[in-house]
């Protein structure tokens, strides 16, 4: 009976001030969507880090000799580097996990694959213009500096290397971009969240005012505090949960139309966003929406409905 009463009060409360309720739900939904997006990005970066850390490589490009000052790397130079790499992949604390020589032809195949969308460029590029390289996997990608210090000396006309490239550094720039996107989403989420909270406070204020006679009588006849306050708080909680539902729906649509739609060609780089992560957002957002609005509602009521 009391449950039915409280539920009825919540429905009446949401309808009484329906424009404010809608505003509250929309801001709540925007805030929670961005919170969800930020959490997804965070998990995505983590995921990318584990995926990439397995195949992150250091590439040592040999000179291609396309200018008079430079020349093609000689067999002696290649052997010297290979000997150094071999030495580093053995011993008590090896630096190098594995390494592989990539010929001009292999480089050409990769290039053709990478630029398959621009066949003219592929046609114009001669195999001999592409550098030979060593693809090196480090035991620990974080020890790149150590590796660089050792092999820097080969980056010279005498050593035969053009440059040493750490893929991890490139990836870190991608992660930086994703990281700042995540922070941006989080900041907007917090700002919107504050706006949502103010709307919660205002809605409760209006609700408390329009029900002031009932509240006065309830206090007079000795209704318990929770019984007086529950309908107001549940009103805010209901708005929070509806907001979370909308936010979850938005994330599902984003997954379908943005990540699996427009951004599908980039799936190789940014890795796929798993459905599990998207679905996980619903309970998290619902909890965040409900918890934040109920706590705010409760405190707002302390202020407007004194015992």
């Amino acid at each position, binding site marked *: 009976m009391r449950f039915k009463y409280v539920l009825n009060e919540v429905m009446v409360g949401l309808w009484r001030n329906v424009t404010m309720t809608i505003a509250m739900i929309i801001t709540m939904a925007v805030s929670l969507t961005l919170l969800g997006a930020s959490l997804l990005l965070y998990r995505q970066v983590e995921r990318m880090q584990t995926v990439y850390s397995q195949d992150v490589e250091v590439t040592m490009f040999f000179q291609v000799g396309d200018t008079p000052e430079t020349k093609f790397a000689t067999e002696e130079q290649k052997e010297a580097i290979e000997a150094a790499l071999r030495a580093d992949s053995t011993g008590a604390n090896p630096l190098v996990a594995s390494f592989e020589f990539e010929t001009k032809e292999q480089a050409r195949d990769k290039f053709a694959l990478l630029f398959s969308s621009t066949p003219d460029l592929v046609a114009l590029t001669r195999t001999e213009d592409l550098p030979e390289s060593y693809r090196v996997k480090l035991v620990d990608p974080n020890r790149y500096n150590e590796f660089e210090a050792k092999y820097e000396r080969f980056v010279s006309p005498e050593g035969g290397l053009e440059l040493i490239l750490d893929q991890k550094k490139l990836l870190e720039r991608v992660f930086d971009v994703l990281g700042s996107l995540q922070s941006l989403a989080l900041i907007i989420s917090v700002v919107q969240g504050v706006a949502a909270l103010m709307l919660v406070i205002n809605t409760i204020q209006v609700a408390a005012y329009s029900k002031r*006679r*009932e509240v006065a*009588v*309830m206090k*007079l*006849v*000795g*209704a*318990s505090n929770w019984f007086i306050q529950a309908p107001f708080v549940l009103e805010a909680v209901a708005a929070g949960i509806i907001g979370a539902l909308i936010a979850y729906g938005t994330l599902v649509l984003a997954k379908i139309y943005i990540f699996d739609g427009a951004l599908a060609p980039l799936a190789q780089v940014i890795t796929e966003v798993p459905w599990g992560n998207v679905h996980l957002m619903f309970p998290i957002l619902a909890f965040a929406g409900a918890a934040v609005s109920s706590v705010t509602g409760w405190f707002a009521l302390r202020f407007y409905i004194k015992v």
Partner: protein
Amino acid sequence: MVLASLTRRVDFRPVIALEHVTKTYPKAQRPSLNDVSVAIDKGEFVFFIGPSGSGKSTIVKLLLREIQPNKGKIMVNGREVGGMRSWRIPHFRRSIGCVFQDFRLLPNRTAYENVAFALEVIGKTQAVARRVVPEVLELVGLGGKEHRYPQELSGGEQQRVAVARAFVNRPLILLADEPTGNLDPDTSIEIMRLLDRINRTGTTVVMVTHDSNIVNQMRRRVVEIESGKIVRDQPRGVYG
């Protein structure tokens, strides 16, 4: 069982006791109540009289624990009200019924619903309400008008609904703050008859008023307050 009822009969502890109570509102020049002591026994009918601003209504607020005294103790039914924890207040208020000058009915609810509301919000079932509410409406003389809204009732009838609402939980004490303030003399007398009838059921009635006619007719205990002090406490008194 027999012993229990015997000890209750010889229980002389007053149901309401103010002991050296002083209440000064913030920003006020002088106290509204100044070192007031008064004891009211179970089943008594007491008038608090005095001019406006004498501190009568402060007593009602103190008894309801809407405000707290600066000094002194307020005992209701053997419990100290002043130091009561705030979460205990709702339950405590269920032992006190309240009637005001402005009725304080809910305009969007019928007479029946107004009375039932008081039961509903303290957790009584609708079955209980269906049994008790018609009974108490009958008692206050509103049988047959259960489904009227407050604006369809006269002032006296509205006050009867308020009394029914105050009494429906069978409180120990009925507080009436100027209950006849908005009513004409004839209607006022009807309300007084009603309060008298409620008093005869054993309910302690405390009424704050400055209606001299009523006080003179009823011939009950009169406590007169002036400038926050008790200046007269007389059994079977008149307005003076």
